[in-house]
């Protein structure tokens, strides 16, 4: 009797896991199905997890909107700039700090560590930051989306720990050969650090792609990134398109579903790589033996 109980528990556990996994993806499948279904099926609430009356009208309509294309372009620019600058600025700082405060390190090492740690723990908050960004003339500039968050203490710590763990001998050999820190950084440290750089790139891409508040407060409505644009159209559904002829082609629910799905698509496409690296990154950062 005991044995059968055990194996029942075993299958029960498998069932629970499968149900949890389904709960996590079914909402997305439902939205995708609605976006691909016919207006009649959507209005009759018939669509669950498979499109009924398959068509792409909602996507045609969504992509026909020049505002969406403009916002997409802003998002791409912002992500690329933040990726390049974020990797460069944070790994440079991390390299300098990885030298410690010793003979070949940075004088005032403790001061710099404290400087960054305080910046991580405490900040001026939303309104004072808004005042600074607008005061220095960044309002409605793509730099307002990138610069305020680009120097990131968590990334610096992650990179620094990785750099510290690299074998010393290679660096020392290069110093002997007359390389400076810049040479060692570009020729030895960076090429050896590709795994951690990849992890941070993915962190950066996801964060930049998903961020919407800065777009909302720092940009004019015609220059917002995709996430902010989505926020505004989802908050006030485009009912203006509801004249009879258009409503027969797609329902506004399909349109907002299509918009939701377009917003999530880049992340979904990247997801297989993401999942692998994020798991690693979190473990590098969180669990230290």
């Amino acid at each position, binding site marked *: 009797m005991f044995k059968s109980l055990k194996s029942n528990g075993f299958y029960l556990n498998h069932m629970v896991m499968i149900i949890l996994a389904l709960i996590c993806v079914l909402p997305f499948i439902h939205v995708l199905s609605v976006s691909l279904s016919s207006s009649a099926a959507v209005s009759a609430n018939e669509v669950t997890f498979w499109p009924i009356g398959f068509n792409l009208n909602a996507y045609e309509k969504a992509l026909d909107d020049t505002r969406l294309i403009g916002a997409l372009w802003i998002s791409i620019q912002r992500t690329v700039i933040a990726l390049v600058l974020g990797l460069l600025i944070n790994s*440079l700082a991390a390299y300098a700090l990885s030298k410690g405060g010793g003979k070949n390190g940075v004088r005032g090492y403790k001061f710099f560590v404290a400087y960054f740690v305080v910046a991580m723990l*405490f900040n*001026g908050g939303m309104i004072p930051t808004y005042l600074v960004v607008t005061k220095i003339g960044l309002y409605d500039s793509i730099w307002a989306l990138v610069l305020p968050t680009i120097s990131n203490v968590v990334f610096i710590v992650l990179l620094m720990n990785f750099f510290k763990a690299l074998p010393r001998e290679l660096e020392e050999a290069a110093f002997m050969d007359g390389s400076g820190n810049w040479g060692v950084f570009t020729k030895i440290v960076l090429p050896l650090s590709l795994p951690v750089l990849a992890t941070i790139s993915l962190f950066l891409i996801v964060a930049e792609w998903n961020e919407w508040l800065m777009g909302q407060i720092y940009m004019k409505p015609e220059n917002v990134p995709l996430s902010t644009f989505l926020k505004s159209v989802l908050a006030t559904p485009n009912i203006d398109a509801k004249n009879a002829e258009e409503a027969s082609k797609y329902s506004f629910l399909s349109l907002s579903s299509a918009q939701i799905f377009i917003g999530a698509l880049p992340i979904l496409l990247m997801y297989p790589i993401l999942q692998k690296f994020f798991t690693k990154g979190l*473990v590098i950062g969180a669990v230290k033996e």
Partner: protein
Amino acid sequence: MNIGSATQTKRRKITGKKVKIELYLMLLPAVVLTAIFVYGPMGGLITAFQDYKPYHGIIHSPWVGWTNFKMLFEYPDSVQVIWNTFRIAVLKLFFGVVSSLAFALLINEVKNRFLQTSVQTLVFLPHFISWVVLGGVFIQLLNPEYGLVNQLIKWMGFEPIFFLGDNNWFVSTVVLTEVWKEFGYGSIIFLAALAGINPALYEAAQIDGASKLKQMLNITLPSLVPTICVVLTISLGSVLNAGFDQIFNLYNPLVYESGDIIDTYAYRIGLIGGNFSFGTAIGLFKSVVGLILIVGGYRLAYKIAGYKIF
């Protein structure tokens, strides 16, 4: 020490100066950006003690002392907001840790590699999707008329529930959707800790005839105590962080009473309403409480489990 290495140290000393300047140049961009965008706004915090008007600027705005903070604790609105924030954040913290831990324990028992990795792949997914998108998804799913969840509820013979428009339901909905988004990702740290448990302990327990349940209670859970303590103490810092992104993308005026939190309130009053000083004051209050709890939390984590970031 022979002559060769002595000349080498000499050479290193000469290049030392140049080497150091390079290091400072490398630090410079991060230091400058942090100065402008983190320390600069900290200076702006003095507006919390002023009646700040943009056309006067910080220098010419009149000083009002602690008035803004007094208002914070006297306005029924802001007191409600502080309570809402605390309530939502603590519920999220508690259910977040419990759900991640439970999931880690269960998935750890699944020995079929394919099932294990597939389930993990799927449950991590929501973590990476922004609240803008998820807000859209949930508003649609939970709609009282056409939302799929309410159709299921109606089909089971109950009255539809206005999850995002009813103060009795909003907080539970917020906590549940947050748990839905993060339980998988939150389990990673527990899984890492589980992987570190010495298998010999389980072997010994099996020889002694301990059941699976006994093994879990007497080996697995005690081994996870340090990790649980670290996660809980470090999360202490976020007891006033109820999740601006999530709330802002899910709420509406109908549920301000239960769902308005410090950050959304500061945004509406401060940035949209133009009451910069009051918005800054409420933000400052939150940051100071957060800071005290973070520092306290780290100290505690260090004492309990020897956890250190640096």
